[in-house]
């Protein structure tokens, strides 16, 4: 992975000193709340319900074991022993003291980490596919490009005070696993007929109050120009994005208002001035960074390990775990493994300090000392020998990492919700817990098959509920917590936004409603159909009928508008 040189170290350490001084001035009273707020946000520090929350950047989700150990250490010493992995591959700590935040940043800097631009109206952490570099269907490794973009976006002087937050996602595979069409800029790595690398550029995706899928603005952008083209996009946005209403300030609204054609024309006009400038990337720089993501020293191994085949045949619990939590690898005899952070009784995406330490040990012993964070809020060991899978599974089981549910209903994405977040309308963690309990039976869970269920505690949509086959959104109705359900959303190449099923439900009814929706799917599905396939075939109505058995569907439909 990328290692800092003296420049990177100097820049991150200077940031720690700068934030220490800003915090000191704020605590002394010479920097007001209003003046300090945007500054602390650009260091990932929110003031939450109980205490400040610190969002630590995990660039493109990649962590070395020494970084995991440092995160465990920080979680233990400065927090209450639990970290929360977010959908943007970052780690959030919910009990940081403001006066200790600079010390936490200094600890992070010691392992080449930071919390730079993890919040605020600036360019945020660059995210990508958790299987980057090992996916069999990869066109090119997205991580070097993500690192190039990380450096370019860090303290970019022109784009620190944008109308609203700005997220860039990048995918190196034909099947998009990084939800790039839900980003302000989505970059899809492609090769042209001559075999040269470039990017298909999408702009204007995003969730929140107005969920929109990004539009394609350029089919093939040669790699040399990726920075200047992003600068052109950002400049048009910085100048013309709305600043009068935060709900209409994302670039998606600008793209929608101008239309894709006019927006693209403005970007191209700006780019014409920038494209041959000094930001044009050089082969030398790309090589300098790419060689730090060179393949690990893999052994030459057979595609099928005999012992592994026996274990698969003999142990049902093991084979079930393999079926869900083990993923193909481009190198023969290796596999990628998801360590599930979605076990009953624990908030989705939460990991204790002991688990962070344990994950570091597993990474050292099984996966070249590296782990990844997924946008579904799990961890991945990307380079495990097939013959080690059984031993790893045994260890993962004792550590609470081996719930065999990846891609299944209980592999929920869930925001921290009203338990922690001051923006939330409703709690989300207790809803996740209730659903987890209802669907805890593994045979039942596996029979239901692939199904994404996501929960957001408010319209800011941190839980990506719009993109789930079943989405749950916390809403406030006269001071009470209610939950609206959407169906049919999906991420990836065919990303689409879920449809609202009808009026919202009380918290206690949510597990029953989910069960009735699942029953409807099971009653209607053909052999191998997934929930989404059945939904696409039979439509919303049968599910709506099941969700509101005692009322007429006419009422349900009518009440959609104010749910």
């Amino acid at each position, binding site marked *: 992975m990328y290692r800092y040189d003296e420049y990177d170290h100097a820049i991150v350490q200077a940031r720690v000193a700068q934030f220490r001084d800003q915090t000191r001035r704020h605590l002394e009273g010479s920097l007001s709340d209003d003046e300090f707020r945007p500054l602390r946000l650009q260091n990932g520090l929110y003031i939450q319900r109980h205490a400040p929350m610190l969002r630590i950047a995990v660039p493109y989700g990649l962590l070395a074991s020494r970084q995991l150990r440092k995160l465990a250490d920080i979680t233990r010493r400065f927090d209450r022993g639990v970290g929360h992995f977010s959908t943007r591959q970052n780690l959030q700590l919910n009990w940081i003291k403001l006066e200790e935040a600079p010390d936490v940043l200094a600890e992070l800097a010691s392992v080449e980490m930071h919390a730079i631009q993890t919040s605020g109206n600036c360019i945020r952490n660059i995210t990508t596919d958790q299987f980057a570099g090992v996916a069999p269907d990869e066109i090119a490794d997205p991580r070097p490009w993500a690192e190039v973009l990380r450096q370019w976006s860090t*303290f970019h002087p022109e784009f620190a005070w944008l109308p609203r937050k700005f997220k860039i996602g990048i995918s190196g595979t034909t099947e998009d696993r990084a939800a790039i069409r839900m980003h302000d800029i989505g970059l899809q790595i492609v090769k042209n007929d001559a075999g040269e690398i470039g990017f298909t550029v999408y702009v204007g995706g995003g969730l929140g109050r107005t969920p929109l899928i990004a539009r394609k603005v350029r089919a093939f952008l040669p790699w040399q120009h990726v920075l200047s083209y992003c600068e052109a996009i950002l400049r048009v946005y910085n100048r013309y994005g709305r600043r009068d209403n935060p709900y209409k300030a994302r670039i998606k609204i600008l793209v929608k208002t101008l239309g894709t054609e006019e927006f693209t024309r403005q970007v191209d006009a700006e780019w014409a001035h920038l494209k041959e*400038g000094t930001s044009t990337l050089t082969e030398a720089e790309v090589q300098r960074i790419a060689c730090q993501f060179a393949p690990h020293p893999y052994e030459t191994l057979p595609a099928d390990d005999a012992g592994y085949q026996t274990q698969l045949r003999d142990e049902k619990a093991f084979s079930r775990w393999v079926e869900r939590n083990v993923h193909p690898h481009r190198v023969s005899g290796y596999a990628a493994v998801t360590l599930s952070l979605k076990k009953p009784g624990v908030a989705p995406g939460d990991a204790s300090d002991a688990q962070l330490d344990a994950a570091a040990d597993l990474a050292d012993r099984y996966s070249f000392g590296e782990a990844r964070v997924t946008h579904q809020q799990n961890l991945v060991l990307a380079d495990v020998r097939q013959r080690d899978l059984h031993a790893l599974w045994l260890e993962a089981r004792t550590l609470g990492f081996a719930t065999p549910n990846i891609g299944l209903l209980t592999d929920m994405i869930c925001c921290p919700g009203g338990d922690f977040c001051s923006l939330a309308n409703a709690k989300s963690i207790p809803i996740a817990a209730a659903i987890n309990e209802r669907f805890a039976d593994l045979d039942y869970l596996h029979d239901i098959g692939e199904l994404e269920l996501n929960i957001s505690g408010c319209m800011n949509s941190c839980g990506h509920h719009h993109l789930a086959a079943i989405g749950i959104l916390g809403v406030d109705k006269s001071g009470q917590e209610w939950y609206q359900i959407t169906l049919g959303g999906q991420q990836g190449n065919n990303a689409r936004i879920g449809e609202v099923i009808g009026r919202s439900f009380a918290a206690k009814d949510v597990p029953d409603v989910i069960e009735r929706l699942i029953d409807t799917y099971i009653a209607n599905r053909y052999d191998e159909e997934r929930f989404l396939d059945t939904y696409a075939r039979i439509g919303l109505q049968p599910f709506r009928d099941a969700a509101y058995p005692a009322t007429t569907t006419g009422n349900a439909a009518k009440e959609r508008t104010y749910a």
Partner: protein
Amino acid sequence: MPEQLIQGRQLADNRWTTLTIADDAGDTNLAHVAVPAGAVIIPAPLWLAQRAALIAREGEIGVSLASTFEVETLAADIAHFSLIAVEFPKFVDGRGYSTARLLRERYGYTGELRAVGDIGRDQLFYLSRVGFTSFLIPDGRDAAAALQSFNDFPEVYQSGVDQALPLFRRRAA
């Protein structure tokens, strides 16, 4: 702490006067506004309304750009200005950073570029990177202490008005 100018990375006297016009003054009024003698900063719309007369005027002239002002409008007039002020109604309104880069990098403006409005110590580093050379620190903020912030970072990744080459081109050298 009264309003204080920073120029050349030190505290400086403000030799310019600023002519402000009420928001409700229409275009017709602008033609009749009297521009005083001496080094004066006038709103850009006033420049556009009295352009011919102001070009003929003796003495230095500066223009002030609202955050919404499209700098392209002045592209042909840049050479007439000794000072361009860019207004920041709130420090989180970042439009002026793009305006500054366009003035320096696209329109070749080489005179004094002044940041005015809701700015302070924690904005100076980025402002100086996009081409601002003077900073009018408003009443109540400590301009002397703010001088330190020009040295907040020893290195930068991107090119800017202050640094022609991005770090990757200097690293390689």
